[in-house]
C-alpha cells in the first residue's frame, strides 16, 4: 500500500521539522567553533558569519615541552575507549550469556544487581572509588580508568545482550552439544557470531561511555599527558571565564568520531537493540 501524495508530503514535512530542531543546537556548536572568538554568539542564526579554523588550530596544537599534547590525549582517549569497548563487551557477553541460558543459584540476585548498580548516584561513590583505586595502585593509570568505565558500561550492555541472546533459539546450542561441542563451543562458535548486531551496539555504547567522561578522568589522572580529550576540553572552562571558541572546537573534535561511528553502525543499532529472531 503506497500512501497518497498528501500523506507522503506531510510525513516529509514532519521529519524535516524534527531534523531541523535536532540539528539546531549542533549547528550552534559548529558556529561557535568556526568563529574566531572566545565568546558565545547571541544571534539566533545558526549560520556562521565568519569562517576560521583558528580555534581548531589552537586546540589541535597544544604542546607540553616536546610532547604534542592533543595527539597524546587523543591517543589516550582512543586507547581507553577501545579497551573499555573490549573489556566491557567481553565481560558483558559472558554475564549476559550466563543470565540468558543457565539456571543457577544467585541468578536473580545478579540480574537485579546489574540493574541496582544503575541506581546509586555517582555523587557519593566517587570518593570511595578514588580510595579504592589508590589501594589497587591504579590511580593515574589508564588501566584504572578502563576498569572504572567498563563497570559503568557493563550493566546496560548486559541487558541489551541478554535480550538478544534470549531471542536466539536454544536448539542452536543443543545442536552444538549433540554435535560434540561444549557450552563454550556453542557460545564462541554459534551464539557470538550470530549476535554481531547486538555486539556492535554494545561496543558502541561502551565506547561512548568512555569517550565522553571527564569528571572521574580529571580526578584520577594527574598528568596532562595522561589526560583524555574531554578533560583537556574542560580545561577551557574556567572559574570566571570560558574560552567558548576553543571549547566548541574541542566539542566538535570530540564528537566527530562518535558521530561517524554512529552513522556507520546505524543499521545495526536498530536490529541490535531489539531484534533477535534469526531465521534458521
Amino acid at each position, binding site marked *: 500500500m503506497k500512501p497518497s501524495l498528501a500523506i*507522503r508530503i506531510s510525513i516529509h514535512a514532519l*521529519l524535516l521539522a*524534527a531534523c531541523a530542531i*535536532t*540539528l*539546531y543546537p*549542533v549547528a550552534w*556548536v559548529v558556529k561557535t567553533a568556526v568563529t574566531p*572568538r*572566545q*565568546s*558565545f*554568539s547571541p*544571534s539566533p542564526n545558526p549560520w556562521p558569519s565568519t569562517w576560521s579554523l583558528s580555534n581548531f588550530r589552537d586546540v589541535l596544537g597544544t604542546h607540553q615541552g616536546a610532547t604534542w599534547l592533543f595527539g597524546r590525549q587523543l591517543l589516550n582517549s582512543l586507547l581507553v575507549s577501545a579497551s573499555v569497548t573490549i573489556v566491557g563487551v567481553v*565481560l558483558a557477553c559472558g*554475564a549476559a550469556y*550466563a*543470565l540468558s*541460558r*543457565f*539456571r*543457577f543459584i544467585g541468578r536473580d540476585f*545478579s540480574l537485579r544487581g546489574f*540493574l541496582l*548498580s544503575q*541506581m*546509586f*548516584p*555517582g*555523587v*557519593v561513590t566517587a*570518593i*570511595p572509588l*578514588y*580510595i*579504592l583505586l589508590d589501594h589497587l595502585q591504579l590511580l593515574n593509570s589508564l588501566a584504572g580508568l578502563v*576498569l572504572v568505565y*567498563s*563497570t559503568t558500561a557493563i550493566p546496560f550492555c548486559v541487558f541489551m545482550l541478554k535480550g538478544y541472546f534470549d531471542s536466539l533459539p536454544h536448539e542452536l546450542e543443543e545442536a552444538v552439544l549433540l554435535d560434540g561441542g561444549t557450552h563454550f563451543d556453542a557460545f564462541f562458535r554459534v551464539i557470538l557470531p550470530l549476535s554481531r548486531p547486538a555486539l556492535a551496539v554494545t561496543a558502541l555504547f561502551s565506547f561512548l561511555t568512555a569517550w*565522553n567522561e571527564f*569528571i572521574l578522568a*580529571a*580526578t584520577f589522572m*594527574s598528568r*596532562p599527558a595522561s589526560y583524555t580529550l574531554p*578533560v583537556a576540553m*574542560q*580545561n577551557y*572552562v*574556567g572559574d*570566571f*571565564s570560558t*574560552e567558548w571558541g576553543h571549547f566548541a572546537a574541542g566539542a566538535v573534535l*570530540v564528537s566527530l568520531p562518535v*558521530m561517524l561511528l*554512529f*552513522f556507520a553502525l546505524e543499521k545495526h543499532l536498530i536490529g541490535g*537493540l*531489539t*531484534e533477535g529472531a534469526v531465521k534458521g
Partner: protein
Amino acid sequence: MTLGLVLHLVVWHAYHGAEESAFEHATLAFETANPGVSVELVAVPFGAYSYKLEAAIPHGNGPDLFVGKSNGLQEWIDRGLIDAIDAEVDPSQFVSGTLPPLIHHQRLYGVPLAFKSVALFYRRDRITKPPRTTDELVAIAEREHAADRCGLAYEAASLSYHAAWLHGFGGRILDDNNQPALDSAEAARSIEFVRMLANRHLIAEEATGQLVTDLFNRGECAMAISGPWFLSDIEADVRFGVASLPIVSSTGKPAAPLSEIEALMLPARSKTHAAALNFALFLSGKDAARLRALEGRQTVATAATWQLDEIKNDPVLTAFYDQFKLAVPMSQSRALQASWEPGQRALRRVLRGDVDAKRALAGAQAEIVATLRPAPPPAAKLPFAISLFALGLALLWWRQRAQPEVAFRSQPVAYVYLAPAAVAMGVLVFVPFVVGAAMSLFDYDGVHATFVGWGNFGNILRARDTSLFSPLSFYFALLVTALWTVANVALHVAIGVALALLLRSPLLRLRGVYRALLIVPWAVPNYITALIWKGLFHKQFGAINALLKVCHLEPISWFAHFWTAFAANLATNVWLGFPFMMVVTLGALSRIPRELEEAAALDGASAWMRLRHIVLPLIRPALLPAVLIGAVWTFNMFNVVFLVSGGEPDGSTDILVSQAYRWAFQRGHQYGYAAAYAVLIFLLLVAQTAFGRRMSQKQAT
C-alpha cells in the same frame, strides 16, 4: 635533595589561556636557575579542581604544591589538607593586605601570587571619564539607555559581585564573629539600589559572564564590572579603561569589592616542602612576578613588581592595584561558602520583583543558618545495631514470603561466564556503593567522621530547619523529581514512537538520512548539550526568545519561573533522550508482521484503531525494559538540571540528585548528609522499578 639526582615537583593549577602560559614561562625560568629541580605543571579542569585536591591529598597522592585561594582556607586547614609554611617570609616583600587572608592562628598557609578583585571596566569610545560616584554612574547609564544601549553589565545576581554595593551601603555578609549578617537594613538598601538600576533598565538583565563579555565587546554596554580574568576576553580592537568602583552617593562610602588572594599552598603529607617552598618563593619573586604581570596580566602580590616602570605605567594593572587597596578581603570561614547560594537566590528574587529586599534577605539569612546547622548528635552504636538487625530480619522475611524457592538444578558452568563481570562489578561498583552508603551513617566532611546512626536520615525526612514546602526540603525535591521523571519518560516515548512510525515505511525516500540525522543527539556528550541549551533559553539573547519575537510573542524569562525553567530542563533532556526510544521502537516495529495490520485493515479498522489496538500493544514488550532503564537514568540526570536551570528559580527545579550534589560540594561538604540523600534516592528507585515491573506484569496477564 641528593646531588646529581633531579628533584621532581608537581604543581597543580587551574589556569588557562595567558595566565597559564605566563605561569609556564616563569616555571621554565625557575628550572633554568635550579638545574637540580624539574617542575611539572598540571592544569586541572576547574570543574574538578577542589574535588580532586580533596580526594588526592588525604591519600598522599596530592601534588607538591598547588595554586589555591584564600577564601577556602579555614576549611582546608580544618580538614587537614594543607600545611603551614614554617620558613620565615618577609612581609614587606608583598603588597600589603595580601598576607593576612593567608594567616590562620598566627601561621601562614600560602605564598601569595596574586590578588583578585573586580573593578569597573569602561569603553573609552563611550566614556571619557569613569564615574566616581553612583550618581554619576546612573547618569551615564541613563544617557546610554536613552541611546538604546545598556549602561552597565555585570552578574548582578551573584553575591560575590553584589558584595561591592553591599559594602558601599554599609552592610556586610558576615559579622566580626564570622556569623551571617545579611539581614541588615544596609544590605536591604544595597539591593534596593540594584533593583532601581534594573527597573530603569540601566543594567543588563539576567547577565552571565558570557553575556557581559559579549555586550562589552560589541559596545552594547558602556561599563562592566569584572575582574582581571576579563582582560583576556576583551577583543583586541576594543579601547577600554579600568577604574575603581564608584563611591555610593548616599553613604559616601566606596563600593568595596571582595578580594581574594591566589597563593601557592603546601598540601599536607607532601615530603618536599622545602623544595616546593623554594619554587613558591621564586614564583613570587620579582622576575617571575614581572613575567606573570606582563604576559599573564595578573595583578601580582609581589610589592617590588609594582615599582617597575613598565608596570607602574600600565593603567589597567594599576587600576586593579588601587581597587585592591579599597577591597574587603574574603573571609576564610566556611560561613562565607555557605552564603553564596542563598545570597544569589535572594538577589534573584528581588530583581524579579517577587518579594521586597528585606524579606528576601531574611530568607537568605535563615537558609545560611540552616546549611550551617550543627551536625546530628553522635549516636550510640548498640541501639543502631539492633535497629539495623531488625530491619534486616524484616527484609529477609518479606523476601522469603514474596518468593517461594523453586527447586531447580544449578548449572555451575554459568559461574564461569558470570565471574569476570561479577568480580569487576563487585569490586568497583559494590564496594564503593557500600562505603558510600555507610557514609550516610556518619557526620563526615571528608576527613573527620562522627557516627550519628540514623541522624542524617532523620534530619532529611523530618525536613528539619526548612519548611516542608521550601525547595530545600526533601519532599519538595522528591515531588519535582517524580514530575521530572514522568514528564521526561512520557515525552521520550511519545516522540520516539511518533518519529519511528513516520520512519517506518520502507518506501520512504531518504529514510536512512533522516534516521541518521535524528540520532545525532545521542552522539553528543550531554554536558555540551546542556550548555548549548542553556544559551538557547537566555532571556535577551537566546534563540528561543528570538523566535518568539518573530512570532510577535512576548519574550519569556525562562529561568524566572518554576514551570518555564522546568520546561527548559525538560526540552533539553527530551532532545537528549528521544533518539534512544526512537531506535528501540524502530526495532520493535520491524518485527510486527505486516499481515496483522492488513487483516485489521480488512476488518475495517481505521489507521488510528490499528495503531491503538495492534501496533502499540505489540511494541509494548520491547519498549518496557527501555522505559524502566530510561526512568532510572532520568531520575539521576544530574548534568541537565545542574547545567541548564541550575536549580533556578530558587532551587525549585533541583531534583534529588542535584540536591545531593549541593550538600556534598556546595554547602560545606556535608558528605554524610549527601550520602543519606543518595541512599534514599537508591531506595526510591528500587521501589519505583519494582512497582513498574509489577504494573507491567499485571497488565500483561
